């Protein structure tokens, strides 16, 4: 398909661009907050914006998304309020989780975002359960779980793929393959050099997609989401992507990967690609895209100010949301 022949609605294309940029600007600000010592660090999603954006473009508020330790981009793509997200990062009472969860546990059930998760692979069975719930209740909503190439080695993925397949559940297993589990390269840790190929063993489609190309992600996800909504079962998607920063906080990725490799992926940057696509296909002007970017920056500044101005939780919150009072 050439760029001018895209059948994707213009509104959707523009929403995807806005989302990519909003994620990028949010994550840049989160890094600044960490650099200034206001937070202790995050798992930056810069470079990986396109995968959840292309997938969430097909989702409704009543569809479920479950993430991992690196999940700010999942949350934003699923429509979680960035004021509340930034407040959560700063540990404030107005945060998505009242300041109790922080960067690795952002959740907003009203948007179908059932949580980031700090334990690798831990959310995959939970997402499978959300899909089971939809099926048993006769609903057509779908469940999407995002995980990394590292999590593909956890038993939880394999057990969940098997369950989802034998029960024909409406779930998308989405591997964001950013090539590194902390400092451990994909080619060392994943036998067979493919996550998508593992789908065959569980009787479901396994698709590899360029995770830097939001249009391609959108198209692959569209088929998978429709398949799930029609009751035809799960799909495994492996999106090839790259994190521009270290694993966490101040980790310097130059300790385990080359500048050349980094440049290769930065040249394929998902935002640059989308800018070019929108301009060349006549969907938007350069000026319009700049407006959108400025808008995103303004939203992030506003969110940061909201977070800074918000109060910390009352110390009594330490013992709220606990089932059992002890001693």
């Amino acid at each position, binding site marked *: 398909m050439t760029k001018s022949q895209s059948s994707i609605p213009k509104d959707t294309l523009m929403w995807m661009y806005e989302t990519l940029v909003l994620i990028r600007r949010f994550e840049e600000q989160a890094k600044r907050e960490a650099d200034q010592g206001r937070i*202790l660090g995050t798992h930056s999603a810069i470079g990986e914006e396109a995968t959840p954006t292309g997938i969430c473009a097909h989702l409704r508020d009543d569809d479920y998304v479950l993430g991992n330790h690196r999940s700010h981009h999942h949350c934003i793509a699923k429509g979680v309020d960035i004021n509340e997200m930034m407040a959560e990062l700063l540990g404030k009472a107005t945060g998505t989780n009242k300041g109790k969860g*922080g960067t690795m546990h952002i959740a907003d059930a009203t948007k179908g975002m059932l949580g980031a998760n700090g334990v690798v692979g831990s959310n995959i069975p939970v997402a499978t359960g959300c899909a089971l719930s939809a099926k048993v209740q006769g609903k057509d909503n779908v469940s999407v779980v995002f995980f990394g190439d590292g999590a593909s080695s956890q038993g939880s993925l394999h057990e969940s793929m098997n369950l989802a397949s034998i029960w024909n559940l409406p779930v998308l297993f989405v591997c964001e393959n950013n090539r590194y589990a902390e*400092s451990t*390269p994909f080619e*060392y840790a994943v036998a067979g050099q493919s996550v998508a190929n593992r789908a065959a063993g569980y009787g479901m489609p396994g698709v590899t997609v360029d995770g830097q190309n939001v249009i391609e992600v959108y198209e692959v996800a569209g088929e998978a989401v429709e398949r799930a909504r029609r009751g035809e079962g799960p799909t495994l998607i492996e999106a090839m992507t790259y994190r521009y920063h270290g694993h966490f906080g101040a980790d310097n990725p130059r300790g385990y990967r080359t500048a050349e490799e980094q440049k290769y992926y930065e040249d394929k940057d998902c935002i640059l690609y989308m800018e070019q696509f929108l301009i060349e296909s006549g969907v938007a002007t350069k000026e319009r895209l700049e407006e959108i970017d400025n808008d995103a920056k303004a939203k992030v500044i506003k969110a940061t100010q909201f977070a800074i101005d918000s109060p910390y939780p009352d110390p009594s*919150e330490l013992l709220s949301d606990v089932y059992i009072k002890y001693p």
Partner: protein
Amino acid sequence: MVSTSVRALTYAQAVNEAFHQEFERDPSVILMGEDVAGGAGRSEFEDAWGGVFKLTGGLIGKFGPERVRDTPISENGFVGAAVGAAATGLRPIADLMFVGFVGVCGDQIFNNMSKMHYMFGGKVKLPLTVITSTGAGVGSAAQHSETLYSIFVHFPGLKCVAPSNPYNAKGLHAAAIRDDDPVIVFNNKQLMGGVGGGIHVPEDSYVFPIGKADRPKEGTDITLIGISYTTYQCLKAAEILEQKGFSAEVIDLLSLSPLDEDAVLSSVKKTRNVIIVDEDYPMCSMASELSAIIAEQAFDFLDSPPIRLNAPHASVPYSPVLEAEYIPSPEKIAQAALSILE
């Protein structure tokens, strides 16, 4: 003239030295875990991390990738592999990066590691060590900040130790590796981050015996029992109490299973008052266990009921203002002591 120079090491350096010496001493020692070296399979980036807490750096360069193995993120897989390797002639160390990840590999630890020796009639030995990190205070929230001693000590087939400073950390890691039974070593993140570091650590290899507590401070009015980082907090609390005119004795538990009951009881019988300071959740905790032992075996010596000072019965919160309230502080410990002594 006797040299009085202090060979100051950080906690991480001391543990790293123990690993190097044990690898040197015994060729059956191997190490498995996520990023224990880092940059796996790429010679130009070998040892990129040396472990998340820098405990295991330099090993792969000296002892090679056959003995020092970065693993995929597969805790159930590599912890279980450590059990199998231990049963068949190796002396493995498995690095469970955060203690909460026991949720992933609990089957191997609780159903195999803790039981094989007993249920096979004592005919199989499992000389293996699991190192893991514990503790709040670094903004890591509910899943990366737990302490969880009690669920491990609950199992009869696991030995458990919790070092409190670079000196005993080096000796306890060496002891754990040489022990013929499974030993879980809990390394507190604040201690690994440098708190309480800079004390003298002998260069020569040594073991700190499993099953022995330490008494870092003598006193007469009250016993403060600490575990790992809370020993540091107890020593700070003892300074506050000193200023108020009270003499606190600090017992550093170190070995959680087996327990050094003699050290605990003899101190409590002397001071007649006791506070057990434990960062773990309170219900069925080490503090609860010690409190029961003291009540059963030293009841007649006590001037006041044992006090358990745990973290609150809640998951670890993220917000810095809540997390600061979470860990038992020297001020809270001193306050609890004064409530008895004044």
